[in-house]
């Protein structure tokens, strides 16, 4: 196994630990927004898509690259926007007692 690959595994495991720990008990109302936000983050694959698209040679590769970028961008842009919309309900701050 290449050193790079092993490094990848180390990073993967540590990041997974962070992922497990970072989610403590979440109130049910936040389940959907959190899912949506996490989903937007999984759009990080856009980085891969950009690279694939940029270096794709030939029509097939170009089309695959284009599709990959499109898909990933939908995920990223739509994901963050829709999460923000869901969270609008939390904007209002409880005012002090009159």
């Amino acid at each position, binding site marked *: 196994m290449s050193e*790079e*690959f092993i490094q990848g595994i180390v*990073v*993967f495991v540590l*990041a*997974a630990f*962070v*992922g*497990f720990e*970072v*989610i403590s008990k*979440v*109130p*049910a*109302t*936040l*389940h959907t927004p*959190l*899912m*949506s*936000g*996490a*989903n*937007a*983050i*999984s*759009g*990080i*694959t856009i*980085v*891969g*898509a*950009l*690279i*694939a*698209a*940029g270096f794709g040679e030939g029509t097939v*590769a*170009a089309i695959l*690259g284009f*599709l*990959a*970028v*499109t*898909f*990933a961008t*939908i*995920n990223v842009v*739509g994901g*963050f*926007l*829709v*999460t*923000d919309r*869901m*969270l609008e309900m*939390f904007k209002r701050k*409880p*005012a002090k*007692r009159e």
Partner: protein
Amino acid sequence: MITLLYLAAGALFILGLRGLGSPRTARRGNLLAAVGMLLAIVVTVADIIDEPGVVWWTIIAGLVVGGGIGAYLALRVQMVAMPQLVAAFNGFGGGASALVASAEVVATDGAFSTETAVTVALSIAIGVVTLSGSFVAYAKLQGLITGRPIGLPGGPWFNAALGGIAVGVGIWAVVSGDPIAYWVLAGVTFILGITAVIAIGGADMPVVISLLNSLSGVAAAMAGFVITNQALIIGGALVGAAGLILTIQMSEAMNRSLAHVLFAGFGTDGGPAIDAGDKPVNRASADDVAISLAYAQTVMVVPGYGLAVAQAQHAVRELANALEARGITVEYAIHPVAGRMPGHMNVLLAEADVPYDLLLDLDHSNPKLPNTDVALVVGANDVVNPSARDDSSSPIYGMPILEVDLARTAVVLKRSLSPGFAGIDNPLFYKETTMMLFSDAKAGLEAVLAALEEL
């Protein structure tokens, strides 16, 4: 250097996810994650901008088209349709990961080291399952196909068999390195995604979407291995793990075990018993109620006979104390015939030491209810039944009621949809602004208090 910037993006993702877990910080969390994503994209573009032979049109076209579609969908869609939208977005994400790996297959014609080949196969398989599965979930929720579980020939064994085939094809691909094998894998897993999700009922879709979301993270991480990119590995692993925890929490909140949801076909699972025939109710959890209360300015507690039956007088007082400690105004609306004897509520609330000046009678509470953020109805039914006001054919027509249906939100805490003393149905329960918390009054109030203290 670029790796360190990716690391910074990863750190922003972590902070973002963490923020999303609590109502106070959720918006900021989402923003942080978005900034992290922007950073990752900019870094990537900056990194390749000087490279020769970069095909820019695909990038630009993809960003424009994808961004447009994403923004349009996100901003146009109705609140209720959001879960299915998340499903759709998720499908695109999974698809993108599969495409990244596929592009690599095309570019290298399948010539990978074994370990890389494994990650390529995993990227494609998981990405495609996410893609097709998410769209089935979308279709179910959107009503394009029926929400009911659709039986498959052979039941759950069908999917097990299909899964087995996918594993076989995957091994073939890794061992042979033949691009065809990867495309076959994509085909098999595409079907698997459909058949796996289609067998699950519509009510469980949120859990399924969350699981698919976790999978799309794993797919992204695998793609990261394929193209040796740590941003993908970090982000993907994060989402994979966080998504899994979230999935478990969601199924717990719905009182389902995850295994039950996924392999429902293996056993029979009745699911929660309360259902109002055809009339839909907003069924809330204690957490939901806690959040509504925490973000209210004025709360009106409306006690009824159920409070007495559950002997929940102390619990209601504690909850009110906790709310008051947050600066929320809490008062009590006492209906003249709440309970089963004159002054029933007075006896109980006096026992719990609720100050007399917080007890409002009908004449004093009804004018306040329309400006009340949350009316918390604890085991009351007839005394908050709008039929008494609206429906001249109702046997209780003409009885004065507490008009909690005019409050901004009504939370009704009772064990079921059963009627009260008068034996009649209550339209309040089916209102859009009503949240039903089905529980014993005491246990329910305690759960809400516990949830409130975690906010």
